[in-house]
């Protein structure tokens, strides 16, 4: 298949996907729309992490921290910190805080990208892990700014669209609150998706891939390691920040415990399961991140598995065992993630087509 054919197929697939996303809420329950809103939020974060880890090969176990930065930025811009005696007023409508969430997180990411240059592979993983672990305590320390352990409650404030009334009027239609969250997250997610695709197909993307495949080779062909590695950190952090801002909006609440270490770990799991270095599989990665813990608890699956099994796995600890084992099995069976499967399927189709023309 020519690159042109691949690209056309890609466009068509993307358009179909956009259409699917647009009409899905009409077919699912109101609550499921909210669940899929979270899937969209995770997708944004995964797109960002994928740029960093899938494309430049820098492992981050701390992207939850960037989400936290975005989330807190949004929350503070909305509610201010007068709740706890501060002097910062809020007043920015939720939607407009999202670009700021991305910006602040992105800047921090850039700042982190520079010292990160000195670290590679597992050392970087450890360093980012350290940041994720340290974040909750550090947030609590600066409690005049962040609300400390109790966090910032956003429910019902004017700046949070629709939370009080349960309905949102937009473009002449009335949406339920859950549908509003869904469309908000997914419109941003689709834009983010397209943005990632654009970044990655161009020179920047090639430079990223060069860095991942061989740093020495990249260097010798003139790719500035420092610039691209740092850029990757900044972009991925910005994505995570946007996701974090949306996360704060969807939860109507931020506090240090809403961004635990587990979040960073789940994001990493999401891109590996979704498929590093590709984009399409990430949707499945996001679904996995959000739904597997629920499925492991036997929820949403009640009709599929027999009761006896559900009982045993619902004993506390059972869901975690299921989750861990599933994860390990996935690493054995689909090392390249769902995206890898897509690529394989694509290759198989391509091979069949070619062999027929012979």
């Amino acid at each position: 298949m020519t690159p042109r054919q691949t690209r056309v197929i890609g466009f068509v697939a993307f358009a179909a996907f956009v259409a699917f996303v647009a009409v899905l809420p009409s077919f699912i329950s109101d609550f499921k729309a909210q669940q899929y809103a979270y899937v969209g939020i995770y997708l944004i974060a995964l797109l960002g992490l994928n740029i960093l880890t899938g494309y430049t090969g820098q492992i981050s176990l701390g992207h939850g921290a960037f989400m936290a930065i975005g989330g807190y930025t949004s929350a503070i811009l909305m509610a201010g910190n007068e709740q706890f005696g501060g002097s910062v007023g809020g007043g920015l409508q939720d939607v407009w805080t999202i670009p700021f969430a991305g910006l602040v997180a992105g800047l921090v990411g850039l700042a982190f990208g520079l010292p990160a240059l000195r670290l590679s592979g597992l050392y970087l993983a450890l360093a980012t892990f350290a940041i994720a672990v340290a974040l909750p305590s550090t947030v609590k320390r600066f409690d005049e700014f962040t609300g400390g352990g109790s966090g910032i409650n956003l429910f019902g404030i004017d700046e949070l669209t629709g939370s009080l009334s349960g309905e949102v009027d937009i473009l002449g239609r009335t949406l339920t609150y859950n549908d509003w969250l869904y469309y908000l997250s997914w419109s941003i997610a689709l834009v983010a998706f397209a943005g990632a695709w654009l970044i990655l197909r161009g020179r920047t993307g090639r430079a990223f891939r060069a860095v991942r495949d061989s740093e020495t080779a990249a260097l010798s062909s003139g790719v500035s390691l420092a610039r691209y590695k740092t850029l990757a950190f900044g972009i991925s952090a910005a994505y995570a920040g946007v996701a974090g801002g949306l996360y704060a909006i969807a939860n109507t609440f931020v506090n240090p415990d809403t961004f635990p270490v587990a979040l960073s770990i789940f994001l990493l799991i999401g891109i590996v399961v979704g498929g590093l270095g590709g984009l399409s599989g990430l949707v499945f990665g996001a679904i996995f991140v959000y739904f597997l813990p629920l499925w492991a608890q036997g929820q949403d699956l009640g009709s599929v598995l027999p009761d006896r099994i559900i009982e045993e796995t619902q004993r506390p600890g059972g869901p975690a065992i299921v989750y861990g084992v599933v994860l390990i099995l996935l690493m054995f069976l689909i090392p390249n993630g769902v995206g890898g499967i897509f690529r394989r399927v694509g290759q198989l189709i391509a091979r069949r087509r070619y062999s027929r023309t012979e």
Partner: protein
Amino acid sequence: MRRQRTTLAAYAISGLIALVALPAALAGASADPGVSSSTILLGGTSPLTGPAAQYASVARGAKAYFDSVNAKGGVAKRKIEYEIVDDAYNPAQSIQATRQLVEQEGVFAVFNSLGTDQNLAVRDYLNQRKVPQLFVASGATTWGTDAATYPWTIGFQPSYQAEGLIYGRYVARTMKRAKIGVLFQNDDYGKDLLLGLKRGLAGSGSKVTAAVPYEVTAADVGSQVARLKAAGVNVFAIFATPKFAIQSYVYANRLRWRPAIINNTVSAATNVMLLASEGGNNKAVEGTITLNFLKDPTNPLYRNDPAMKQYRAIMARYAKGANANDVYHVYGMAVAYETVSLLKRVGANATRVRLMAAARSITSPSNPFVLPGIGVKTGKGDGFPIQQVQMQRWRKGKWVPFGGLWASKNY
């Protein structure tokens, strides 16, 4: 050969993912508010995993009690279903789980959800939707005092501030110029206890001269205990959860430190104290003071108490494998008992409005799981169901009550 296997696996996995994801994607649910002619659906979040997993027994005890009531026909001809969802003590998960209970499972009321931050995170949402947030399992003061702003929310246990206040008053009354050192968990729970303590001491010659926090996620509190000893206090107040309370005793003993010790209710269950006494080798536990309002299953005083016998029977039958010595199960049964009596009062016409009205007008004759003499009552201006607490002292391996009941309203 290897490639074929991977391909096969690839197809199988895609198929599996599609098969599982699709029904999950399309399954819908109606918004039924949890009452049918044969069932009432309650739901709540509980830390089944994570740093607070030991409190999962609160939910389990309640469930066991409901199961025993159902076996006898239920309440007003309805069986009580109680869905417990894990939130791993993470408020973001509590929010998502609670929304699921309300919007997808369609519960009648959110019941017995555990944790201060976890419940604060969902309080606005539940009140906006007029869903009862019944018997919050947390001692934050706000559950009782903010009924006007949040009419759908009510707690159960005495507030931590009230508890701290009583300790303060007790010290003020019985010791002159005491210097108190406090180890407290660095969240609302610990801070409320500390605040109450300071208020109780106000105006007396005794004061808190050292207060050292620790994080829920801390590994151990050894250096905190060492600091308190070095600060020269003669009263050590442990405002910590069981794991860290036990550590406090272990470290105090290792440092040969023998202050008068106050241990908070959350960590004063008999089985916890026995662990802390290290098989009798740790004498630091002797003389510890605490407050309590529940009957303790391992206290020999209640061995022949009919309610405790019933408790053990229910645990054996409906909570197989659970540790019946864990007093948090008793707490769960106590709230479940109150809930059943609310449902009885509400009767056949079960609406959320009537449930909350009943919850705000409790005049329970007695709750069998609560210590004798302690009343369960709510009314205008009184949002804390448990009315009194009993002071106890640890002597030779068990709690001995003394001094009568203290009113535990928040002053």
